[in-house]
């Protein structure tokens, strides 16, 4: 069986061209038309309470099981709101399929979307990841030979996910690193991954991209410096959410060196040539105390235990 995992906080109005649609119900509707049926849908929903009745009603009409759950509370996350890693792990803790496929709440799925992942896994032993050709996305198709290349609409075997103890919940997704980290650790575990494209798959335009940005009403900031620094250091961690793996260096790497700079400091990323633009942003400055709090209380998660608590 395939477990489709949908993590969302997107409400009605989140899809630009169809503002009246509920993104979760839209996905449910699309999945109802799939030509492959041996799957379940796990929805980890930041708007669980608000959407519970509607999803339950939809679940009664479709031919597959929907597990609609709220995210676990995560007091330690930097942004105190939404942490995509926590959502993903919550989803994994409910998944029953041998392969888990990440969905998004803003995509158009061809009818053979699930079939593709199932076929890739069963016939080729490959955890497929969906890509779509465009001028800016130059990730090559085919088997992945570089760590960190797969992100986004990817799949992974449940067994591997449990072996890795899930996504590293220290990545809250605010810098979009949890997916690269995940792909890297799967790569190191020798999970065969491959980028695949399928006609008809596309992203739907959204009114906002970043969940926490929606929540906070503040701009979403990514720093490539943080991304690369983090990748370098984090690759040495095989299993996530394990305190015994943490060192001051790995913990500091989670938040990006920019956030430890003061206004006017020279960022190492730019070889000390330029002042860092991020650091002067009040939003980034505001992260520092949160970051420090996080470093004092990093996440501890045990996916296997969560699954036992969930009766799996």
């Amino acid at each position: 069986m395939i477990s489709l995992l949908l993590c969302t906080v997107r409400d009605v109005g989140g899809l630009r061209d169809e503002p009246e649609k509920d993104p979760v119900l839209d996905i449910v509707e699309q999945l109802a038309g799939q030509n492959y049926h041996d799957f379940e849908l796990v929805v980890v929903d930041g708007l669980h309470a608000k959407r519970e009745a509607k999803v339950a009603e939809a679940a009664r009409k479709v031919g597959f099981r929907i597990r609609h759950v709220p995210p676990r509370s995560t007091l330690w996350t930097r942004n105190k709101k939404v942490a995509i890693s926590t959502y993903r792990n919550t989803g994994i803790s409910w998944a029953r399929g041998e392969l888990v496929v990440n969905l998004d709440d803003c995509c158009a799925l061809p009818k053979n979307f699930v079939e593709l992942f199932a076929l890739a896994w069963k016939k080729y032993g490959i955890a497929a990841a969906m890509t779509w050709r465009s001028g800016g996305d130059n990730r090559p198709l085919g088997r992945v030979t570089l760590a960190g290349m797969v992100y986004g609409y990817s799949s992974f075997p449940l067994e591997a996910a449990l072996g890795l103890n899930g996504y590293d919940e220290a990545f809250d997704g605010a810098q979009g690193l949890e997916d690269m980290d995940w792909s890297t650790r799967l790569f190191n575990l020798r999970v065969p991954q491959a980028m695949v494209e399928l006609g008809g798959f596309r992203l739907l335009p959204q009114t906002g991209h970043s969940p926490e940005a929606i929540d906070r009403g503040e701009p979403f900031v990514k720093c490539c410096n943080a991304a690369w620094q983090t990748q370098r250091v984090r690759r040495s961690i095989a299993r996530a959410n394990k305190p015994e793996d943490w060192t001051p260096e790995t913990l500091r790497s989670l938040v990006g060196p920019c956030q430890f700079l003061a206004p006017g400091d020279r960022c190492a990323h730019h070889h000390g040539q330029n002042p860092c633009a991020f650091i002067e942003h009040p939003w980034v400055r505001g992260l520092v105390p949160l970051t420090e709090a996080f470093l004092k209380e990093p996440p501890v998660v045990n996916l296997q235990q969560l699954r036992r608590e969930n009766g799996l």
Partner: protein
Amino acid sequence: MLIASSADAEARWSAYATEEVVYGGGRFAPGHNFGSVIAAAGEGTYLGAMGLWLSEESVTRLSGDVRFTVGRLLSLLGPVYVADELSVQWAAHFGWEGKLGGHPLWLFEPREEALPPAVISDVGAAPHVAALMDRPFVLLAQHDLGLAYNLAYCSCVRWAQQYDATHLLAYSKEEAEELLSKRRNGDVPGVDKRVIEEAKRFARQTLDSLTARRRPATASTAEEALRLSLGERENMPRELRLGDVFDPATHYTKEYFGGEAGLLYTDPQGQKKIYHGPAMDWGGFDNVARMLRAVLPVEQDARHVDLGCGAGNVVRRMQAQGWRSHGLDISQDAIAAAHPDVREKLICADVTKLPPEETGAYDVVTAFDFLEHIYLQEVPAMIQGIKGLLKPKGLGVFIICTRGDGEQDWTIERGDTFTRANSWLLASGHVTIRRWAWWAKEFVERGFRLRSDLAYLFQVLRDEDPVMHTADSWRPRNFLIVEAL
């Protein structure tokens, strides 16, 4: 292509004009910095800047309160949709048909495969552009001269690499500063024709390039999608397992060459990494062949042999310059991949065990990135072998990976295994790394004399060569010309 910001954001912009890829996804609001503009362009979108337009201040002078809003070009051949008067003027400069729309955020019928579009915008409009776009796009916008220079130099290099495009500069820094200064003094120059022309050319080149790369997914069935996708990169990297013996006879496989699959090795920290070997071919060999023709004092139809010839790319290029050229390589895989024009000229053989008919047959021997692959104890025999190939006064031209200051000599013995300590370098197949002077001495002690005069001439040419002057491995430290006594 061209991205805009207000003048006071220049310092912030410059922070992003680096060779790193800046990527992101998110919202943009007026007053935010360039990082946000790029983020607004969409996840995975790499933008580069090429030129410049008027600063925000100048726009205001030219058009009162009119600001650029949004224009969207569905393709170069299609109509340009713009939202206000100034954008129409903008589009007209590019020879595009402008069409006024009543809405500041004109929304158009998406034409799936007619993309990618270019967008005319200013910073204030960028969030609206981003909201309109659900795919990577090229943003054309006003900009400040000095900053454009920065971006052209930095971002554009990265951008050009991404898209195999040629990177162009409209202005030198001095010119840019002069124009900027004029503008600040109220002497607002008109739009420079050069900028327009460059921008037009670049726009077309960009869109052509992007369009060529945008290959629509044609597979409609899951089976076909997998077959097509997996077929593009069949090869997984070949693993160099710790404890396995390094064997030059089997090391240089197709995974080594070409940079596609690579060799999976273990670094000293125990992490798995991939080594991508040299490309099978390098366009710079054309320049090398021309320069050697100019520098070496040999007859037009001189006989030449290239050691470690791989797929014969040097041989092919030397042939094109009139040399009677042959190649030797130990790797059957590499020779099998040779161009048909030269395949018959390539011999798969160990250079230290040459057939007798090759003795004393050549005027010139070349070996580029080769000798460092020879075991230390076999270097004397190799040099004797090279001498054996050459006629009296024949010349040897070598590029050798040597060690520099602060680096250590490096020796791998025959039969050594891959270890955590050595795999990061042994993946490259380098087994003997010494200083330049060590190699020179080895040759001199075995019947050669240095021809530093020729090497100097070569380096003078290299310094002037548009390709070779950036090819670091061809610097004097790695370059050696010797003459057989």
